[in-house]
């Protein structure tokens, strides 16, 4: 007698791609706005990005219902933090909180692939990349989601430290200027859109720097 199998899954993958790049005094966080299920498009205009605090922006691809629940939990936790400490959470603090929140559901995970971007205590850009259960690392750039396999090698080529043999291989913040970084990100998505069916429609870009938060949009291929 074969083992009983579930005839439904609590998860769905709504596709999409997220990217973040850290600069010396800025951080760029971007994600496409397409939401899919299987071979269908549910909407062309869904934001995967949320600003959790003054200097922390979260972009998440995966199962958007879990993403939304995760965003709400983090927002509530942040409010409590503000009441207790009379200040906003820093990006590194938010990074740890996100990791703990994800691991809390280690045995029924949030199906969310997260990239957290922001400014650290010194005002430098920082990017944290996660897996679904909270393992995280600070990096200079990252990509998650359906197009990540197409984007990450390209970012490695453009941004990675050229000689990892000489120094410990740590991704430093890129020396690129803010506008160069934005162009790079736009290029990433234009390429990913060509070959990944789940990425496209529109690109939402958030730029965090000393003067605050700025939002930009770019059209992507809709096929």
């Amino acid at each position, binding site marked *: 007698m074969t083992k009983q199998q579930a005839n439904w899954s609590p998860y769905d993958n709504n596709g999409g791609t997220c990217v973040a790049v850290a600069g010396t005094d800025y951080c760029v966080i971007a994600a496409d706005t397409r939401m899919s299920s299987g071979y269908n498009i549910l909407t062309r205009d869904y934001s995967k990005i949320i600003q959790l605090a003054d200097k922390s922006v979260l972009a998440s691809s995966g199962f958007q219902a879990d993403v939304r629940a995760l965003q709400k939990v983090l927002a509530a936790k942040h409010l409590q933090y503000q*009441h207790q400490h009379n200040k906003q959470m820093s990006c590194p603090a938010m990074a740890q909180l996100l990791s703990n929140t994800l691991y809390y559901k280690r045995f029924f995970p949030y199906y969310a692939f997260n990239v957290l971007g922001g400014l650290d205590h010194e005002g430098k850009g920082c990017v944290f990349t996660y897996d679904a259960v909270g393992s995280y690392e600070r990096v200079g750039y990252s990509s998650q989601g359906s197009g990540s396999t197409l984007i990450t090698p390209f970012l490695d080529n453009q941004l990675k430290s050229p000689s990892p043999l000489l120094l410990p291989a740590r991704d430093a913040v890129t020396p690129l200027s803010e506008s160069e970084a934005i162009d790079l990100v736009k290029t990433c998505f234009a390429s990913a859109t060509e070959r990944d069916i789940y990425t496209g429609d529109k690109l939402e870009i958030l730029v965090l720097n000393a003067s605050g938060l700025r939002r930009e949009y770019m059209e992507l291929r809709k096929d």
Partner: protein
Amino acid sequence: MFRNQYDTDVTTWSPAGRLFQVEYAMEAVKQGSAAIGLRSKSHVVLACVNKTSSELSSHQKKIFKVDDHIGVAIAGLTADGRVLSRYMRNECINYFYTYESQLPVGRLVVQLADKAQVCTQRSWKRPYGVGLLVGGLDESGAHLYYNCPSGNYFEYQAFAIGSRSQAAKTYLERKFESFMDSSRENLIKDALFALRETLQGEKLTSSVCTIAVVGIGEAFHILDQETVQELINEFEIAGEEAPVAEPAAPDQAGVAEPAAPDQAGGAEPAAAADADDDNQAAPGDQGAAPMDM
């Protein structure tokens, strides 16, 4: 109130049908330093006296932000007030998580009142020894509530609690009819005047008081010391008479322009100038030597 054989337990009734422990808890509120609340159609102002127990210590926090649209001023056992504020904050956060909309003030005060009532009906508990003036905004407008240790709550146009609050209440009773249509500035001004009443002649400066405002388009926040001092100076409140009838506004040296139209155009009842001396410890005593803090 005399000590008697029915006041040991909160769950013991007196033959006259009173719960003495609850009444004693309300006494604790009267011992705390004054807190005042006023509201108009669009704003709520909370003000309180913030005196330190010694020059060496810092001020006790008496006004708490509960959410963007609700704040609370307390009088009595500050520790109890802190704990209740934490409860209120969590309730607002949880409500927003579930409904993605702000918790209406009226709902929050009922929850708070029910929580207080529990402590009046358990032998292993004691009533909260703090009175809360809850000011907030919701879809139905601006509201001010007073929550008692007894578990009762009432809505007010204006109210004062704590020590020497009667002086403030008398001032508010005279003026409250004008509050509904008051401007934000006049509301704050009236709060400062009411606060001054409780100081019984002591000089009103921003180091003795805390003011907080919430209104339509304005999240709840505590005004910083500089702003408060500027307002006190602008309204010449420190040692002056209340602005019941002041045609002679120009003789106040250095008054900023906005103050004059405020006093002329404010919704003041045209009472006689001597109507307000029942509450003045030192009428017209500008620059009187301030008491040591």
